[in-house]
């Protein structure tokens, strides 16, 4: 146990290493592909001197490695991801603007996945082969195979256009004075702006649901099978026979080991979330990071792209580490192995 911090540190370091390599690969990509992004962003009417000047400012006239190192220095020293050619502002500023909203969306959906995935999985495992189980399984199957944007369409049609219980999309803006994290609902909550909170939630609801349904379904499937093959295990039988009450057996002796596989899958689900967020944010006009990423990616905005991939990588790595910690927490075998 005591050497857990070391383990985390190792994981972090490794993650950082991978991300550095990745960013370098992307960088070299951008440099080798034809077309001059600077000229592109300014258009043909701008004089060559100006373009050259900006190329120089952005290190595009230096060798790849120099540019990369300079950029890296900026990132490490003062979190400066370079300047976006298309929003004409510091990429870091854009990230600060857009990332929190996406994080909020992702968290919201992640919670939905965890809660409902586990819940449904447990129910159908406990009532195995009952109509309940079967219907859950059927639904989860449909859920797994339906792409998130399909959900989005159906929900838009249903809840936004016909019943009009939810807005079509967008997100209320955060009054600057209460901006702490940049997550609208969260900030509204901690500053007690409940009207805004309600509004934010109402805007989060459909995107989050369409984003998470597929994962919920998958999570449920995994958790179900995990529980079912644990039910057959000797230690459950033993727990019963030495007189542990049913309630405790299920909630503790059965739940805890079943969480191990389903938590592992949960890690993958988070990744899926970040990916799918692209379409969802586009469809719900959710002013989030994915939408921004899409823009810079299409714009071939050099620093933008690198920053975007890097940020995704970071979020990804962090979530993975958290998952691993969770598993280690649950499973002494893992924990002992890592601390050996």
């Amino acid at each position, binding site marked *: 146990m005591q050497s857990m911090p070391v383990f985390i540190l190792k994981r972090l370091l490794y993650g950082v290493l991978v991300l550095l390599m990745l960013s370098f690969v992307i960088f070299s990509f951008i440099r080798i592909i*034809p*077309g*001059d992004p600077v*000229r*592109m962003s*300014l*258009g*043909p*009417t*701008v*004089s060559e*001197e*100006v373009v050259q*000047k900006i190329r120089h*400012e952005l290190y595009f006239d230096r060798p790849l490695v120099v540019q990369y190192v300079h950029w890296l220095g900026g990132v490490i020293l003062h979190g400066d991801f370079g300047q976006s050619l*298309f*929003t*004409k*502002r510091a990429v870091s500023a*854009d990230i600060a*603007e*857009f990332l929190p909203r996406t994080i909020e969306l992702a968290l919201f959906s992640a919670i939905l996945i965890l809660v409902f995935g586990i819940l449904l999985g447990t129910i159908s495992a406990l009532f195995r082969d009952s109509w309940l189980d079967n219907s859950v399984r059927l639904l989860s199957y449909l859920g797994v195979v339906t792409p998130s944007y399909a959900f989005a369409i159906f929900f*838009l049609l249903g*809840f*936004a*256009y016909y019943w009009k*219980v*939810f*807005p*079509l*999309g*967008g997100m*209320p*803006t955060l009054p600057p004075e209460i901006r702490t994290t940049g997550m609208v609902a969260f900030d509204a909550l901690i500053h007690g702006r*409940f*009207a*805004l*909170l*309600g*509004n934010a*939630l*109402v805007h989060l*609801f459909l995107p989050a649901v369409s984003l998470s349904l597929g994962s919920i379904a998958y999570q449920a499937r995994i958790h179900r099978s995990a529980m079912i093959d644990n039910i057959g295990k000797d230690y459950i039988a033993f727990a019963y026979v030495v007189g542990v009450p049913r309630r405790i057996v299920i909630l503790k002796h059965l739940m805890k080991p079943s969480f191990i596989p389903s938590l592992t899958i949960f890690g993958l689900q988070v990744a899926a979330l970040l990916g799918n967020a692209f379409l969802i944010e586009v469809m719900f*006009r959710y*002013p989030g990071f994915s*939408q*921004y990423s899409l823009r810079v990616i*299409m*714009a*071939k905005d050099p620093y933008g792209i690198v920053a975007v991939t890097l940020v995704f990588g970071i979020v990804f790595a962090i979530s993975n580490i958290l998952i691993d910690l969770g598993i280690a927490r649950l499973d002494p075998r893992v924990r002992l192995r890592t601390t050996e």
Partner: protein
Amino acid sequence: MKRLATMLVLCLTFLMVLGVVCLGGTTLRTTITATPETLDPATVIGENDWKVAVNLYDFLVYPSSEDASPEPSVASSWEVSDDSLTWTFHLNKGIKFHDGSELTAEDVKFSMDRMIAIGEGYAYFFTERVAETEVVDDYTVVFKLSEPFGPFLVTLYRLAILNKDLVLANLADGTYGDHGDYGRGYLLSHDAGSGPYTAVDFQIRNYVKLAKFSDYWQGISESAPDTVIATEVRDAATTKMMMGSGEIDLAHGRQEMTTLNALAAMDDIAVASIPEMSINFFMLNTKKPPTDDVHFRKAMAYATDYDAMLAIYPGSPRALGPVPPQLFGYAEDLTGYQYDLDLARQELALSPYADELDRYPIDVSYIQGNGDTAKLCLQFAANMAQIGIKVNLVEAPWVLFCNKEESLDTSPHVTNLFANASYPEAGAILELKYASWTVGGWNQNEWLQDSVFDSMLTEALTTADADARSQLYSQMQHYIVDDLCPSIYTFLSVLRPAYRSDVFRWPAGEGHPHPIAEFNFNYRFFEML
């Protein structure tokens, strides 16, 4: 979950009420296809940027709502030397910037110098033409040109006057020597103008919020909206919903026909039509086979079914040449090309590629997102098929589209695009479309690089006398259309903003659109009901 939903909705409605109460005064809620990237008028050429800029800033001269000819604005009067190289402007007194300080000649000089120094946006009007700017006294400023420049006055519509002191007070370190970043950082999200409105809140990709500037020097009527919120709404479904539910009063004018029809069907919703200084081109690459052959190009021009295309954009007038008719220097006597397959086949027969058409399929590239453009290109492809020309359609996202235009070998045979004159003279669009120095941009896929044309253009632009200039312009148009046929001119672009006629009145709605599209969105002239 339904209960949760309804609960949330209650909160939402409550909040809306709250919002309205808080704002107070009249509010005009409008949409734009994209928020500006910056509020810095010196660096932008985009429609959306200027729709905002005309409200934030003042200009030496202001385009008349009749024919876009220059009228006094910040400058009460001006005179030009006989060699038409020295322009002297006398400024009005007591013009207040938004921070209360007065607008003087210093600010004008500063704005011009800054624009040239930065060299982005519309700076190319002035770089290498404006040799220097002199401040004679607080209310007199003199521009010294290095060569005569005919359209000089009208290009001043793009010189927004910045508050020098304010900008200098907000310099960050940058690459403009002792000017640091020349206030670019500050102007990303603040205005430094004297215009009828001031920017109070700007969230990029989200919305811009303008507030009425009460002591605007020309005065501003009570009925003009106190607050204007321009929200970025691209997608049609949302626009329809919000218009229907009255969440917005004025939708941007770039809706598709299906959307417009749906909107027009709603009650209290009118659709204004604003002709732009812009034309829809099929730009034929004159350097790539087979479109490098003039007969081939003419064949294509004859094979295009213009009426079918106008049917996709109903109400847009047919364009015969590259110049929109409302521009100074438009050649009335152009005949252009008509849909005539026989003529098309004759022309095609003259082209060296006539008998090996299938060896030369042509790529037609257009910008993803607007269904009508797609239909246009599908129509075009269908037409070309009629004379045996094979077409590959290439839909590209805006920026990838631009990427391809950068170099000759990546740019396609044909692109479909609207090209926009940046000042109300034929020269503007002729230069943009066909000058050798504007190749490599999305506005010119022709890669014309024709020395004859270049020299004509230079001559025209440096001709001070209006009539002479107009003459040259019309010669050029004939040369382009009749001899070279580098593009197929389909129709004149018309903005069609839908708006709630029960909420406000505006000139464009009354059938008096301003000839320069952006200037229709100067909210000073709006009248809330």
